C-alpha cells in the first residue's frame, strides 16, 4: 500500500477537482459523501464510470441538485442499499433526471408507498436490474466492486442491506448503508476481507452499527458518516465516537462539514470538505461531551441534580425520572420525549454541556 496522506483542507485539489467546473485528471477518483441531511447519498465519479449509492430523504429535494453540481449526466450504477425513506427517498427523481444504466436493490420487499413508487419508476425506465449477492465482483473501469452483503434476503430489512467494498488501486472504500451489528457479525462469520482505508460508518453513526469487532476487521484510516445537524436520533452516538477514539480513527460527518470529498489516484488519497473549510473531526477530545465528574447523568441523577440542567425545572425533572423507569435514556436527544423540550431546547442543553448519558459498549 502506498503512502497515505490526509489533508484537512486541500485548496489545490479543490481547484483540480473542480468545485466549479470539473475536468477530471486521468485516473483520479472522487467520492462525494453528499450533505443530504439526516439521510445518505454517495457519489463515486472516476474515469469512465459514475456510481450513486443511495438517494437521500423523501422529505427533501437536494440529491439531483448535488449530482448536477458535480456534472453528472449518466449513472452507470445506482445502488439502493435498502428501501428506507432516508436512503431511497429521491430515487424516482434520480431515475427521471439522469440516464441510469443499472439499478441494484437487495430484493427485500418493503411495503411502503415510497418503495412501490420507486419500483414503478424503475419499471418505467430502461435501467437494467440486479439483486447483488455476497461474493459477486464487478468492474467499472479500474474500480473493483465486491458485494459483501446480503448473502440472502432476510426478514430483517437492515440485514438485507447491500454492503459493497470498492477498491481503486491500493485504496479501498467500504460502504455499509444501514448494516447493523447482526449484519456485521454475519459478514465477519463468513471470513470476508473487510480492510478499507475509508469506512462509511453504518446507520449514520448509530450505536446499532460499527461494533468494535467490525472496526478491527476493517482497520479504517478515516471514518465518515452522513447525518443531519441537528437530528432527533442523536446520531452519531457517543458509543461509536468512543469506539473510533479507542482505535484512533478520525471521524468526520456531513452534519458538521457539509459534503465531504475523498480524492484518490489509487495510491494516495486526501479528504476535504466541499466548502474548503478545515474538516471538523468528531471526538471526545473536542470537548463535545461533558466530564462525567462534573456532568449530570440523565439515567441516575436525582431530582435536584437534574434541575442543574438548562430548561429543567421540578416538573421536567420529575418527567425525566418517570420516563427513565420505562424507557432508559440512551442519549441526550432522548429528552425529546419530555414534554416541552423541543429540538432547540435540547440543542441548548447540549451546549450547556452538563447533561450526558453513560455510554454502553453494547458489543463488548
Amino acid at each position, binding site marked *: 500500500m502506498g503512502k497515505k496522506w490526509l489533508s484537512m483542507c486541500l485548496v489545490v485539489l479543490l481547484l483540480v477537482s473542480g468545485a466549479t467546473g470539473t475536468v477530471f485528471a486521468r485516473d483520479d477518483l472522487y467520492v462525494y459523501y453528499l450533505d443530504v441531511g439526516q439521510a445518505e447519498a454517495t457519489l463515486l465519479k472516476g474515469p469512465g464510470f459514475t456510481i450513486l449509492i443511495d438517494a437521500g430523504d*423523501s*422529505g427533501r429535494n437536494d440529491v439531483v441538485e448535488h449530482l448536477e453540481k458535480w456534472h453528472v449526466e449518466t449513472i452507470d450504477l445506482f445502488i439502493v442499499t435498502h428501501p*428506507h*425513506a*432516508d436512503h431511497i427517498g429521491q430515487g424516482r427523481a434520480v431515475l427521471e433526471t439522469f440516464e441510469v444504466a443499472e439499478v441494484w436493490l437487495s*430484493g427485500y*420487499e*418493503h*411495503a*411502503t*408507498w*415510497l*418503495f*412501490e413508487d420507486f*419500483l*414503478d419508476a*424503475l*419499471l418505467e425506465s430502461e435501467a*437494467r*436490474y*440486479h*439483486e447483488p449477492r455476497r461474493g459477486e465482483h464487478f468492474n467499472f473501469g479500474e474500480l473493483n466492486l465486491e458485494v459483501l452483503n446480503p448473502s440472502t434476503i432476510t426478514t430483517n*430489512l437492515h440485514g438485507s442491506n447491500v454492503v459493497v467494498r470498492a477498491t481503486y488501486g491500493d485504496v479501498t472504500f467500504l460502504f455499509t448503508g444501514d448494516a447493523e451489528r447482526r449484519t456485521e457479525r454475519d459478514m465477519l462469520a463468513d471470513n470476508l476481507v473487510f480492510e478499507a482505508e475509508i469506512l462509511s460508518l453504518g446507520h449514520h453513526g*448509530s*450505536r*446499532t452499527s460499527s461494533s468494535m469487532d467490525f472496526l478491527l476487521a476493517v482497520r479504517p484510516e478515516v471514518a465518515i458518516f452522513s447525518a443531519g445537524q441537528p437530528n*432527533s*436520533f442523536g446520531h452519531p*452516538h457517543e458509543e461509536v465516537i468512543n469506539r473510533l477514539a479507542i482505535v484512533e480513527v478520525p471521524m468526520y460527518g456531513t452534519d458538521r462539514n457539509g459534503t465531504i470529498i475523498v480524492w484518490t489516484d489509487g495510491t494516495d488519497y486526501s479528504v476535504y470538505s466541499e466548502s474548503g473549510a478545515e474538516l471538523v473531526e468528531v471526538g471526545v477530545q473536542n470537548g463535545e461531551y461533558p466530564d462525567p465528574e462534573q456532568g449530570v447523568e440523565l439515567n441516575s441523577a436525582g431530582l435536584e441534580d437534574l434541575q442543574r440542567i438548562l430548561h429543567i425545572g421540578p416538573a421536567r425533572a420529575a418527567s425525566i425520572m418517570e420516563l427513565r423507569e*420505562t*424507557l432508559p435514556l*440512551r442519549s441526550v436527544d432522548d429528552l425529546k*420525549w419530555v414534554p416541552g423540550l423541543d429540538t432547540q431546547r435540547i440543542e441548548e442543553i447540549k451546549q450547556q454541556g452538563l447533561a450526558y448519558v453513560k455510554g454502553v459498549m453494547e458489543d463488548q
Partner: protein
Amino acid sequence: MIDRIVDERTAVLLFEDRERELHVPVVLLPPGSGEGQWLRVRLEGGDYVDADLDHEKTQDVKARISKKRKLLLERMARRNRDQ
C-alpha cells in the same frame, strides 16, 4: 405506515398524503407493529394519539410490491436471454 424503526426505539411513520413524517416512540405503537406495517393513526393537533394495525392494507401493498419486483426480474431475464 411504519417506514423504519430507528435504533430500536423510534418509529418513523410516513403518511399516504406523502407530505408528513412523524416520529413516535415504539412503545406507543400497537403490539405487532413492525417496519412496513400500515396503521390507522389517530392524531390530535398533529400529534400522535394511538393507532390500529391495518393488516388488509399491509397485505395489499405487499402483494403489489411483490408483483412489481417479479416483473422487474422477468424483464431482466428476458433481456439477458435476448442478448
